[in-house]
């Protein structure tokens, strides 16, 4: 009966996605044994990411007060912040570990929503903006490692420059743009500081895009999870100080060849061990473009296999609509707008209406929640009419 995961999946890709869907929901069952379902952290991966982002912004503002963006001073200013400023090291640790939590939250959010088909129909706006959020978050993490301007930052910069240079035609110009001149100078760190904070501001623009088509987005996780995550980040910052990896300051003479790895942000740079820079750039671009294509190209089921979940865009029955706004309040995708009614409806209740509901078809995901909201029979899913439901009810009670 239920066709979500048992429909005749056609093709290897469809079968793979179906087994991933089943696996994701199997994981939920396990977690739901530990927590009430309202508190399942896997249901709040987006909210947790947002919480970590908020933590990052607050701790980042604190760090910004002490940071000095110049070749000679930046490493010393970070040292001063870590050792001399009360709790400076803790805040720095919070910034670091919250960033790890942020990227993990984003990736979990992406995989979960991909595997459970939450990118289909009109949900492509959150998906596309989410890909940009991921891209920007990764880039911000990378520039964050550069700001410290130790030997790792120095090596990362030269690796990144190599990646930029490998881009055909635009490579040289991009490199000049990134390091601010022909060689690394004080201006480079100013640019990197901007490339750390500017995209971080842009994250909130993308978040607006992420939320704009959703009526009640789950922006924050439940309160206990807020406390737990913030507490965990603080505990980690205290228990595992970021200064445990002692990396010397960058000097023009130093030519480092290795650095402590960070699995959350620096994987592309780890790939440079095996692949030429151009291939890594190509891989990243392909991943991003492929990610953008997922809502349009990734079809787990054909429309026929979706059955009742693909019943067509909701339609307003003009004559019955009373302009009561109930569907407008309940639609989770802001797909229903109330417009001034051009004329009275046909039914008695609709005779004195002043508003009329209109479905914006490009936003409708065919969930049918508006049908449940409407007490006046003024909304229908074209391929699953009220008549069909009542016929099934009739068969059930007569048999």
């Amino acid at each position, binding site marked *: *009966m*239920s*066709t*979500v*995961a*048992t429909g005749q999946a056609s093709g290897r890709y469809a079968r793979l996605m179906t087994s991933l869907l*089943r696996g994701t*929901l*199997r994981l*939920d*069952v396990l977690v*739901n044994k530990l927590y009430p*379902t*309202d*508190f*399942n952290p896997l*249901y*709040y991966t987006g909210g947790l990411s947002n919480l970590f982002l908020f933590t990052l912004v607050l701790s980042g503002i604190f760090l910004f007060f002490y940071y000095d963006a110049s070749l000679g001073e930046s490493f010393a200013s970070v040292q001063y912040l870590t050792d001399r400023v009360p709790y400076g090291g803790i805040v720095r640790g919070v910034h670091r570990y919250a960033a790890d939590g942020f990227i993990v939250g984003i990736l979990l959010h992406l995989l979960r929503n991909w595997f459970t*088909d939450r990118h289909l129909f009109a949900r492509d706006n959150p998906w596309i903006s989410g890909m940009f959020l991921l891209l920007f978050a990764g880039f911000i993490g990378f520039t964050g490692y550069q700001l410290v301007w130790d030997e790792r930052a120095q090596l990362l910069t030269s690796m990144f420059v190599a990646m930029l240079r490998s881009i055909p035609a635009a490579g040289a110009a991009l490199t000049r743009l990134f390091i601010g001149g022909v060689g690394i100078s004080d201006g480079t760190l100013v640019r990197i500081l901007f490339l750390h904070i500017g995209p971080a501001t842009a994250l909130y623009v993308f978040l607006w895009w992420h939320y704009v088509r*959703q*009526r*009640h*987005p*789950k922006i924050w996780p439940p309160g206990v999870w807020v406390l737990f995550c913030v507490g965990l980040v603080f505990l980690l910052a205290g228990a595992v100080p970021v200064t445990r990896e002692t990396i010397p300051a960058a000097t023009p003479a130093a030519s480092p060849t290795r650095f402590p790895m960070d699995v959350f942000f620096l994987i592309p740079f780890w790939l440079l061990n095996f692949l030429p820079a151009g291939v890594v750039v190509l891989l990243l671009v392909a991943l991003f473009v492929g990610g953008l294509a997922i809502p349009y190209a990734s079809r787990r089921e054909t429309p026929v296999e979706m*059955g*009742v*979940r693909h*019943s067509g865009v909701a339609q307003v029955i003009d004559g*019955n609509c*009373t302009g009561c706004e109930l569907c407008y309040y*309940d639609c*989770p*995708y802001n797909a229903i707008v109330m417009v001034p009614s051009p004329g009275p409806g046909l*039914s*008695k*209740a*609709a005779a004195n209406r002043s508003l009329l509901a209109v479905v914006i078809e490009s936003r409708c*995901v*065919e*969930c*049918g*929640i508006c*049908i*449940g*909201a*409407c*007490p*006046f*029979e003024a909304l229908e*899913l074209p391929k*699953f009419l*009220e008549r069909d*439901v*009542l016929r*099934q*009810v*009739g068969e*059930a*009670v007569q*048999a």
Partner: protein
Amino acid sequence: MTQTLKVVGFICDWSVDLAPLSDGGRLREVPGVRVIRVPCSGFVRPNWLEDALNRGADGVFVTGCPYGDCLNREGNFLMRDRIDQLRRRLQRRKVDPARIGMLAFGLHDGASFLAEVKAFVDRIAALPPAPPARAAGRAAVTQPAQASEGERP
């Protein structure tokens, strides 16, 4: 006893996997229960539940995904609220609100879903018998009885 009960269940296509549990729209282990697949639990119009009771069903229930995991974020919460409202409305009509149920189970929760449905059916079986089916048709209390604007033509 439970054999003679007629129970209608509206089941979100994303929630419990019915393939191993049912054939022909009927739960194998609880034969009195007919299931109707819907795209989201929020799709169910409370009138339909009331209508099913009026037409002689002994009980109706809606099954959504676990709270917090609705594919559309809100469907099962909205349905829970609507069912609470419907229960209050039915109470005024002296219909036992226990005849209406809201369940929430995920794809792999088939066993606990069955247990919950059985418990639901047993609770209904213990109630005094329902009034006989009214004439099929629209629910009688779509609007408060005295309200002048009913949209029935």
